[in-house]
């Protein structure tokens, strides 16, 4: 047991935690995105899917708890790392060469991550929480989302956050592979490309929802 604890407190153990929880969260995002895209199928397709998930509610609840634990561990470990690393490197150079030796994605993980964290809390409150805790009209979830994004402030907020998400994922995916030890001259360039591809798909995919509903609201249809 103490060996395990020691492992997770080692520098390599901590990066394994970031990478493993991170990859699991990416998997969650894939499923989340697929569900979101059903919104483009119109109210019936989307609400049917909601009803389907509703019918397996106990299972969903279990998954939610696991997911919450993964999120919490990912966030907790990230801030711990950030704090320790700040202590390990308190002083800056007179001239910064950081732009020339590393990517902005890799340097801003704690910033993009924090923004996503704040978003997550708000997002849980505006959509998940209201849905789960006695919101009126939750039988027509499609309408709820449509109404939310008719508000330009909400639409813009969700849209902007997705850019941060893209930045985060762009570093995260290839970084996880490196941490797992799955790097090589041959495959790493491909892994990086896949990571960038995923980042774009997530950013564009998720951001398309608020944009779509906002535009619809402008058109004044339905």
């Amino acid at each position, binding site marked *: 047991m103490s*060996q*395990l604890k020691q*492992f997770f407190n*080692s*520098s*390599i153990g*901590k*990066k*394994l935690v*970031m990478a493993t929880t991170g990859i699991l969260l990416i998997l969650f995002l894939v499923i989340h995105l697929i569900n979101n895209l059903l919104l483009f199928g119109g109210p019936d397709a989307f609400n049917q899917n909601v009803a389907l998930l509703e019918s397996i509610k106990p299972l969903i609840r279990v998954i939610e708890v696991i997911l919450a634990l993964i999120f919490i561990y990912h966030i907790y470990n990230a801030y711990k*790392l950030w704090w*320790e*690393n700040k*202590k*390990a*490197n*308190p*002083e*800056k*150079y*007179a*001239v*910064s*060469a*950081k732009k*020339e*030796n*590393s*990517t902005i994605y*890799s*340097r801003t*993980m704690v910033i993009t991550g924090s923004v996503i964290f704040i978003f997550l809390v708000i997002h849980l409150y505006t959509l998940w929480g209201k849905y789960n805790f006695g919101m009126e009209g939750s039988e027509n979830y499609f309408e709820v989302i449509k109404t939310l994004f008719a508000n330009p402030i909400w639409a813009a907020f969700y849209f902007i956050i997705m850019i941060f998400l893209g930045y985060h994922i762009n*570093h995260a995916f*290839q*970084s996880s592979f*490196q*941490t*797992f*030890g*799955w*790097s*090589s*001259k041959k495959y*790493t360039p491909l892994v990086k490309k896949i990571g960038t591809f995923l980042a774009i798909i997530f950013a564009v995919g998720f951001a398309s929802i608020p944009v779509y509903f906002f535009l619809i609201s402008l058109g004044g249809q339905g």
Partner: protein
Amino acid sequence: MSEKNIDLTLNIWRQESPEAKGHFEKFEEEISPDASILEVLDEINNRLEAEGKAPIAFESDCREGICGTCGLVVNGHPHGPLPKTATCQLHMRNFKDGDTLYIEPFRATAFKVLKDLIVDRSGFDKIQVAGGFISFNTGSAPDGNAILISKELADQALDAAECIGCGACVAACKNSSAMLFVSAKVSHFALLPQGKPERYERVQSMVKVMDENLFGSCTNTYACEAECPKGISVLNIARMNREYFMAELKTGTDE
């Protein structure tokens, strides 16, 4: 011979002692483009000494890029802006007339500034002592080809062995992580038959000592690889992670 001399403004870090507060001291110099940056410091020091002032403290030994003592930071780049070049091999022809340079020591909690441009890198020594060696006597030189090693493995091991232990990777890293250095040492042994028997104990004890000595944790920014004067690849860090996971599994199940 060379083109004409260039005029540079050098801001050089001066710090009396580890506890003292440091500051930049400004020097306006006319410099031969053929001089290395250390030679420029030598010249300034000659003058300072003639004037009865304290010379700028900096480290160097081989002055041919192999000993690793000469690390300093030029305009934010450990070992200067030229890729894969140690400070001692950095010549002033790489700068333009009128340039302003900021020369300062490696900065990291693990590398305390001792004086001016000299930092305490004993953390690296401690990591080396923890496992950067082979603990059995290898005897006299073995017969050639007695132990066969594929070209590919030999290349990877020797690439890792190129690490000169200078500490630029730590200095470049926003987390002051020593992973590139440690992974180079771990890889260089783990890839060769002579190093294999102790590979798992080695990686565990070197990582442990690294973590104990105030080096930060790696977050894969790869600034180390970009600044390393020997071009040590971050693929070594991936290899070290694999070694470490294997070591944990092994020691976790052996008992």
